């Protein structure tokens, strides 16, 4: 298989996933009608379902997958730890907790600014970075994951406490916290675009120094880069991306683990090539999982987070069971 073919496969999969997400759903719309609506004909109702319900959902799912996949790849390159993942390390949980707090103080998920989620994610990132700088933990991927799981558990308990205090907030948080892209609308999607654009710019400037940081701190310094600055920028980008994704879809675990894992399997360890492959793989995964979540128990829906957990946990096992923990 030539390199070009290997790189094209994920894009093909993304196209398939997007088509499936538009054509199939929990409703009673047959896929033939959806297809004819897609090419500009068909019934008024079918067009409405397609353009106003499924298309924004597809866009949101794709954005979430993109953001989480790229954030996972960056975090793994930064900590040099193949298990580092926003969901597992408590970054998503920090973001989710911030959002729950905001809901408690009167914001509703509809008016929720992405900023709250990003602030929470930034706090989570800072914790992770502090933990990796501690003696001994940085070299031990699994211990970092356990610490992340503990932080997640702590924040989840705090969230349950908030839900206990305020019944109205509880109702809103309950559906959001399982992770779902159902019923999202265009204006929510637009709200995340500025931070995504900013993240893209920062990634493009920091990507070469980050690749050199993979060779070790000393090498990077010898090449004229400043490791502290690189770390800070990458952490900011991760917070931007994870915050945007969490504000859109709630905390999703394992997406940031599975996507870079697949990308590395195709492209090797270089962070630049991995990132390029994360672009199609992340959206494809989330869109596909979302389509599944609509079809499995139709006419009702599963939370998206359930599907990603069911997909991600086995991948976690595969990584851990590898004879030698891959080092980055």
């Amino acid at each position, binding site marked *: 298989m030539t390199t070009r073919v290997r790189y094209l496969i994920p894009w093909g999969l993304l196209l398939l996933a997007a088509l499936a997400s538009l054509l199939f759903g929990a409703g009673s719309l047959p896929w033939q009608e959806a297809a004819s609506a897609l090419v500009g004909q068909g019934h008024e109702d079918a067009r409405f379902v397609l353009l106003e319900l499924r298309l924004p959902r597809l866009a949101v799912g794709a954005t979430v997958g993109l953001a989480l996949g790229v954030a996972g790849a960056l975090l793994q390159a930064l900590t040099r730890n193949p298990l580092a993942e926003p969901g597992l390390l408590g970054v998503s949980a920090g973001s989710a907790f911030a959002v729950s707090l905001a809901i408690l103080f009167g914001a509703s998920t509809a008016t929720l600014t992405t900023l709250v989620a990003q602030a929470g994610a930034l706090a989570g990132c800072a914790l992770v970075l502090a933990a990796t700088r501690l003696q001994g933990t940085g070299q031990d991927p699994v*211990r970092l994951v356990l610490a992340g*799981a503990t932080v997640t*558990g702590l924040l989840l308990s*705090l969230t349950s*406490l908030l839900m*206990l205090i305020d019944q109205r907030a509880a109702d809103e948080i309950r559906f959001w916290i399982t992770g779902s892209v159902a019923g999202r609308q265009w204006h929510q999607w637009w709200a995340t675009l500025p931070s995504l654009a900013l993240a893209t710019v920062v990634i493009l400037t920091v990507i070469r120094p980050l690749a050199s940081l993979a060779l070790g701190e000393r090498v990077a310094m010898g090449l004229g880069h400043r490791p502290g600055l690189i770390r800070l920028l990458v952490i900011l980008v991760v917070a931007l991306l994870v915050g945007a994704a969490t504000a859109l879809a709630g905390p999703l675990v394992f997406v940031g683990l599975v996507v870079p894992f697949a990308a590395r399997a195709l492209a090797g360890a270089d962070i630049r090539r991995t990132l390029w492959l994360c672009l199609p793989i992340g959206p494809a995964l989330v869109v596909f999982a979302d389509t599944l979540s609509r079809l499995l128990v139709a006419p009702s829906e*599963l939370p998206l987070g359930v599907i990603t*957990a069911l997909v991600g946990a086995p991948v976690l096992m595969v990584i851990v*069971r590898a004879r030698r923990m891959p080092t980055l």
Partner: protein
Amino acid sequence: MTVSTTSPPPARSNTRITGHWWLRAGRWSLLINRRAVALNLVLLLVLAAVSLASLALGSLSIPLPEVIRALRGEGSPVTALVVTELRLPRLLAGWVTGAAFALAGVVMQTLARNRLATPGIIGIDNAATAFAVASVVGTGVSLAPPAMALTGAACATALAFGLAGATGTRGYRFIISGVAIGAVSGAITQVMLSAVPLDAANAAYPWTVGSLNARSPDALRLLAVGLGIGYLLALGLRRPMAILQLPEPVSTALGTRTGQVRLAGLALSVLLTGLAVAVAGPVGLVALIAPELARLASHPGRLPLTASALLGALLMTVSDLAGRLLLSPLEIPVGIITALAGSPYLLWLLLRQSPDINR
């Protein structure tokens, strides 16, 4: 072969072993560690005090003399109702679940020689909860929750072992397998909760956070019996488990059947966890913290079984009391209190020290 009889063995009555009492009856003898006895007595006293407070305090505060009168079957009908019908079963549930979780924790930590290897962390709690919720919301087989929780606990352990491959309970692979199993079980619980009507989901809610409010009398009785048997079994396993702390060749050479001891200890810990989850839901952090505290307080090198169990009961009672009082009239489930109090400690443990039990 020569037998040297120059120096006669010291008269038995004079023998003293520092820090111990030596009880003898014929050819049977028993060494009792004085420090352990003192520790357990202190713990019992504290537990009694906290329990009395737990009976007296709440949304309706009852003065202590009234409480005691109600316990003896006297007193006004209202206090009798509150104390003996509402608070006493709850207190008992706290005692037995706390003790069971802690005992399960200390046994598993010792066998795995890893302080992190507690039932909650390796996913047993979550799996037991998933199975129990399955029986509560009525999907799948309609076995009673305790039986289902036990099945779930056993399945999770078997899975963790199978996935960890040949490394056994040592090493991180076992634990991370458990984390994955816990994640999948949590997801399955959510699937079931989202697939049923709201009433059924609300009925199953206490199971997902861990609460003493949801206990069923049958499950409680079953757990009490299980705890009694489990405690005796753990006492019997104390010596072989202590020998297992030595390197594997040494313990084998000393004549310990390591495989059987491990299996028995693991089965014991799974049994206790499953039964306790069936009563109170996943309150797994007690299993981590109670043994830690007990180990801190007792003689190094000893396996503090009784102290762990007492501390578990104590932690559970205190947490439940705190949950009832802090936001009164709202009630915080005990699982949330233990998570809030226990997680920072677990973090500290993870980030600061080598998690190996051998200090």
